């Protein structure tokens, strides 16, 4: 299968007054046609900067090294005007925070129509003002189709929804609107950022449901730290720590038999069993400015060896699975 997206050795740095923040530190991964790749990691692991870099929205961060290839075309250093044509129409984003990601000043219909217009003619002020290409009849039917795909019956409720302002909608409904908006653009690649970060179990169940529906029909990149979301929505998973992918492989295998010590801790932290002691790390959260030598996880790693503090572990690949840990350098996985 050919890769829709191929990221190689990506380094993204931020210059701040306190020093250079090394947000991405050699990320390599690929997403194949029709596949759904999960990216799992905690805040500060670089997953947000990674997907923003794909869209060239990582400013003021700068891409120091590495490349992003989309459908065989290197887009690492594309000009802004060319990037504008790519955003939305080729790579669409479903953002994390449904409460703030919709413009409070426009009703839902206006915001969806804008997405349609971008798909048809582009995102400049001029083309947005024109009414061509988007007859309201066909727009309506497109909206209906997309919402039906998401399991939402058309009818008076949909009309009501389209007439509403974002703040009038429930959280679950706003999330659906955001997904619908991304789908309206018919993208090659859909990025879903933390799709299940909601306090409410009902909303979470609903978004998991939607993700499962989309799986298989779309090429997706799902970013989350939630095991449940990843296992429901993804074919493969990449675990990130300290701006790198430390382990990747087929979803069921990695989640059931994790190799990297970090993966094991991360999974254990979300699958607590009564009576078993908690596996808590004593170390502080990784500091992205004073980056430790060697493996970034070694200060917190319960299985750290002397070599971990000196050498960065190489990425070792077998059968489409990868692990970057000195414990697994010698033997095959």
């Amino acid at each position, binding site marked *: 299968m050919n890769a829709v997206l191929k990221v190689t050795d990506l380094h993204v740095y931020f210059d701040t007054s306190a020093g250079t923040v090394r947000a991405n530190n050699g990320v390599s991964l690929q997403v194949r046609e029709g596949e759904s790749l999960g990216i799992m990691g905690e805040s500060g692991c670089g997953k947000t900067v990674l997907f923003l870099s794909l869209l060239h929205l990582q400013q003021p961060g700068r891409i120091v090294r590495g490349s992003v290839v989309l459908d065989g075309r290197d887009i690492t250093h594309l000009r802004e005007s060319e990037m504008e044509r790519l955003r939305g129409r080729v790579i669409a984003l479903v953002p994390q925070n449904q409460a703030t990601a919709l413009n409070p000043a426009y009703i839902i219909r206006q915001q969806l129509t804008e997405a349609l217009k971008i798909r048809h003619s582009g995102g400049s002020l001029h083309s947005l003002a024109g009414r061509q290409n988007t007859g309201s009849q066909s727009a309506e039917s497109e909206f209906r189709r997309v919402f039906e795909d998401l399991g939402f019956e058309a009818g008076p*409720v949909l009309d009501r929804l389209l007439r509403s302002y974002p703040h009038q909608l*429930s959280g*679950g409904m706003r999330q659906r609107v955001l997904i619908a908006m991304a789908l309206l653009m018919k993208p090659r690649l859909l990025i879903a950022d933390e799709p299940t970060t909601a306090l409410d*179990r009902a909303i979470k169940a609903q978004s998991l449901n939607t993700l499962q529906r989309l799986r298989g029909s779309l090429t997706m990149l799902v970013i989350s730290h939630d095991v449940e979301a990843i296992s429901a929505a993804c074919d493969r998973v990449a675990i990130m720590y300290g701006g790198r992918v430390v382990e990747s492989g087929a979803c069921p295998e990695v989640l059931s038999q994790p190799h990297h010590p970090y993966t094991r801790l*991360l999974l254990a*932290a979300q699958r607590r069993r009564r009576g078993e002691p908690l596996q808590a790390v004593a170390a*502080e959260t990784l500091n992205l400015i004073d980056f430790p030598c060697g493996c970034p996880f070694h200060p917190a790693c319960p299985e750290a060896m002397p070599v971990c503090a000196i050498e960065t572990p190489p990425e070792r690949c077998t059968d489409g699975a990868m692990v970057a840990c000195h414990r697994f350098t010698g033997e095959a996985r």
Partner: protein
Amino acid sequence: MILEVRHLSTHYLVRHNPLARFGHRDHLIRAVDDVSFAVTAGEVFGIIGESGSGKTTLARTMLRLCDSTAGDVLHRGRSVFAMNSSELKQYRHSVQPVFQDADSTLDPRQHVGAILEEPLLIHGIGDAATRRQYIGGMLEQINLSPSFLQRHPSELSGGQRQRVALARSLLLNPEVLIADEPTSGLDPLVTTQVLALMLRLKQDHGLTLILISHDLETVAYASDRIAVMYRGRIVELSGGEDFAQRASHPYTRFLLGVERRVPEIPVLEGVHEHIHGAEDGCAYANSCPHHLHVCHSISPELRETSQGHLIACHAIAPE
């Protein structure tokens, strides 16, 4: 019986200005509605509740940070609401909260040293040297080096902030710790770290812990007894040991993932999600796959179905 909550209700009145617009009326929000439970010394009492369940209002009312509408909270048999100011101060010496979102519970202008000294100063404990000694000891227990004393909250990570907040509460050597979402917003590894620390300190200090969270896993892992709250009421109360097996309220079973609920998708923000009106009947009736006719008219009582297991549901018959 160290802390007892008896038929506690806290209602809010949302006011609409009559001149503003017609058709809007004042309405009552029953954030906490007739809640009763008792906490025995040394146990971990867990409360599970999602957003809008009233769990935070419950915690605040128990701490007398907001007034109750009805009912009472008893600390060692004495009503918290009848206390005068010196008794209240004593109560707050022995019952301490840990709030969610440590970022906002620490004064951005104070450094960690001043934050930790505050409880000791309020209660006039020790002189400067002993206070410093206490704080130093406490810092060690939460695994922070003394260099942190000079830092401001904005210079700490989320986990460090929550640890500082925990230390501040523990400096008064309380009997009871009421932890409201102590790990929400923290990453999985940090959550584990804070939870482990909290449980260790609970053992070391012989605390009673009331652990409130939306996260069923966290509560189920640590609690001796568990109460499930839904829209201001406790719908199920059972032992923590075999919680998952015994859980039988439809809402609890939904939270556990063993049962689906009627797909109720509220399009608009409002009535369904946060505001629980004054209407009668079970609040869960509209989402409940087992709802009966009676569920819509009469609110179910919390009653004991088997030893130590209480459920508020019309559809479940006592054993």
